[in-house]
């Protein structure tokens, strides 16, 4: 490259960078040679700079030998284009101008690379550590758990402003090429400004951008990622997020906990059955209560129907108002306990759960059975291991409740049918969402 051109690039980059406190423009000089460096000191690891650049610069005396040092260092890339250089600079690289050549030293600082403990998907047994917030560390964690040469990693960027680096990880021999194709098409179709976490992708899975049931799973566990790689899934790692995205995700995955693998066969199956029972009760219970107390008490045997009615004798309004009241209270309680600082959290549960629940029954506002139903519904909801799905289930019970208010038992069954039909209608990157059959890899 001619020295004029290098000089013009030098000036042009200098003019494009806004003058800010953390930019460093430094010239290194010895008798024989001089080196211009550009970098952001907040983004760049200065000890690396010291070790890889400044020390050798003064140790290697002849200019030619230093040039060949720069050319052969693995962390140093040659110049490609001005735009790329600018992007690298903003990303934390150091730009070097040396003897009419431009080099890019990749010395970006890797903050947040400590491995975090799992907090969302906890298990009793099995690995306890999750991902970190650093892309390189996360990829390393995956490679560590999945030491296969067929593991392929592609890279792309999402977000028109954030330009977040996203890595697409999959096992080349096991992935379904149709799924991989769908995933890549999906990623290129995303139109978003700031992209920071995989959950943001959820709404893009549908054309209408309004999704209820997640067809993408987000996990913080490297062991789950490794297991899912063997079933041919595509994994996305997002820079700055301790959550990996798994695609495609079907309902079976959303109901699976990693604990199933770390338990014996029958215990695992038992826990799985328990979770499906929880799913069923948390969607159906409030609706069934309204249907059976207000519409069709004759369904129950007489003794039971009487005891339900007896428990309600002091309640001055119809059952659906009672249910709505309690459900909203429960939702408020749940929402509050997530937002509250950890120190006050237990107080909220005590006040809400014990005092309010007890007082509401004593005041004759709700029946005892109602309290049981609401808390049973909430507890069964917590059994669902993936939190996004448990939120979706929490919402879908209101559909059933609405139908049961107008149609009684018939409404509950039709609502349940509709939910199943809706789940059946969903697709996750070409795989049917509501399936219990193991996805076998096509190869």
């Amino acid at each position: 490259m001619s020295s004029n051109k290098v000089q013009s690039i030098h000036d042009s980059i200098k003019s494009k960078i806004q003058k800010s406190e953390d930019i460093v423009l430094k010239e290194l000089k010895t008798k024989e040679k001089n080196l211009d460096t550009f970098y952001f000191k907040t983004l760049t690891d200065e000890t690396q700079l010291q070790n890889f650049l400044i020390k050798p610069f003064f140790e290697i005396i002849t200019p030619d030998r230093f040039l060949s040092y720069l050319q052969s260092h693995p962390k140093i890339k040659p110049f490609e284009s001005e735009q790329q250089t600018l992007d690298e600079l903003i990303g934390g690289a150091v730009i070097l101008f040396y003897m009419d050549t431009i080099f890019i030293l990749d010395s970006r600082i890797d903050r947040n690379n400590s491995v975090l403990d799992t907090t969302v998907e906890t298990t009793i047994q099995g690995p306890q550590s999750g991902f970190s917030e650093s892309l390189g560390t996360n990829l390393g964690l995956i490679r560590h758990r999945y030491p296969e040469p067929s593991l392929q990693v592609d890279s792309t960027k999402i977000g028109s402003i954030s330009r977040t680096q996203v890595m697409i990880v999959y096992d080349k021999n096991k992935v379904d090429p149709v799924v991989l194709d769908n995933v890549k098409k999906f990623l290129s179709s995303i139109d978003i400004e700031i992209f920071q976490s995989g959950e943001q992708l959820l709404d893009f899975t549908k054309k209408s951008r309004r999704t209820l049931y997640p067809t993408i799973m987000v996990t913080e566990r490297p062991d789950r990622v490794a297991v899912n790689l063997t079933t041919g899934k595509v994994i996305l790692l997002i820079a700055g997020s301790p959550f990996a995205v798994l695609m495609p995700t079907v309902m079976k995955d959303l109901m699976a906990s990693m604990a199933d693998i770390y338990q014996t066969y029958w215990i695992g199956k038992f826990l799985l059955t328990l979770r499906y029972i929880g799913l069923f009760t948390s969607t159906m219970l409030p609706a069934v209560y309204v249907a059976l107390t207000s519409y069709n008490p004759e369904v129950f045997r007489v003794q039971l129907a009487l005891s339900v009615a007896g428990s309600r004798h002091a309640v001055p309004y119809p059952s659906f108002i009672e249910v709505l009241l309690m459900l909203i209270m429960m939702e408020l309680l749940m929402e509050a306990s997530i937002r509250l600082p950890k120190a006050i959290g237990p107080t909220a549960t005590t006040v809400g759960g014990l005092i309010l629940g007890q007082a509401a029954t004593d005041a004759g506002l709700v029946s005892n059975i109602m309290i049981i139903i609401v808390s049973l519904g909430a507890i069964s909801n917590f059994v669902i291991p993936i939190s996004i799905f448990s939120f979706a289930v929490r919402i879908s019970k209101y559909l059933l409740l609405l139908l049961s208010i107008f149609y009684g038992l018939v409404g509950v069954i039709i609502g349940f049918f509709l939910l199943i039909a809706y789940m059946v209608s969903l697709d996750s990157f070409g795989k049917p969402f509501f399936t219990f059959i193991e996805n076998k890899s096509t190869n």
Partner: protein
Amino acid sequence: MNRYFLYLVILNMLTNVIIFVPNFLIQYRYDGAIMSILIATISGMILMYLDSIVFARFPGKGLPEIIENRMRVPFKIILFVGFSLFWFTAGLITLLGYIDILHRFINPDLPKVWLMVIFLAAICFVIQLSTQKVVYLLEIILLLNGPLVIFIFFKAITSDYLNWDSIFEIGTHFFTPPKLTPIVVASYVFSGYTNIIIFNRLFKEKIKSINFALILGLSILNLFTSFLVPIGFHGADGAHEYMYPWIMTSDSIRLVYSPIERALFIFLMLYISITLLSVSVHWHVAFELIKGSYIKKQSKKKNWLVFACFIGFSILAVLRIDLLKPEMVIKFWLIARYFFEIIIVFCFFFFLRRRKA
């Protein structure tokens, strides 16, 4: 994907209770019902087999795709609209029958139109799905309901109130010569196979003979159960007093230890989803056939128009059902259906068998 054929037939077997099949059979209990059931079984199996070998020549193609380039447009429109009318009425009759049952036994206070509206909403959601999704739903709902069906069957058979002597008495009329009506009525159990004209899209290979063997066994079991169990509960003379013999039968079964004491409610809840599904399958066929008449010029507007027709007709029908004498209508419809089936199966057989796929 062959098992879906089995499911389609099983679905029709289960719906026979709603569409008055047991009533007509019980009506002819002394006049050749048993012989008629056997003849219906033979004729049903033959028709099913013929239809399946015709469509096996066109793997993965429904009727609209097969006919697409073989017919002039006006003929095609007449053919498809005519066919889809048949499937539409098949669904409508089931729907009206079941709404009547719900109105009588579960929600007497709720106007029938309201019930119709919620059923239509659910059905319309299902019929616009792709054929593949409809059978997925079919499979899941049958899997969920299968245990209940078996449970009620088991409870009915082992009930102390089931009087085997009444059933044996009907057995003494075995050699009475058959009559047309019970043959036609009993053959309804098999007619799930006709849905193959659309669902053949999913059948990539020839339907395995194990399916036919299963269907034969299940259909005989099904027909004799739906015909003889009410007789066992209500007596050979008493059974024909009821408009819905099976519902009264299930109400006679007591579940001693269950919180739901009357099996009637389990039965009715089970049939809500079975009916929804049966109507959805029939109307899906109707909808896809109509779509077949404008296969090259698909548009959302046309689809909405078809939906509007479906919904309008159904609401009109539910408003005017009392004038129609449902039992008579269903009887005539069942007879017409039988001859329609025979005609289309033979037409397909002679026109399509020699064509290449």
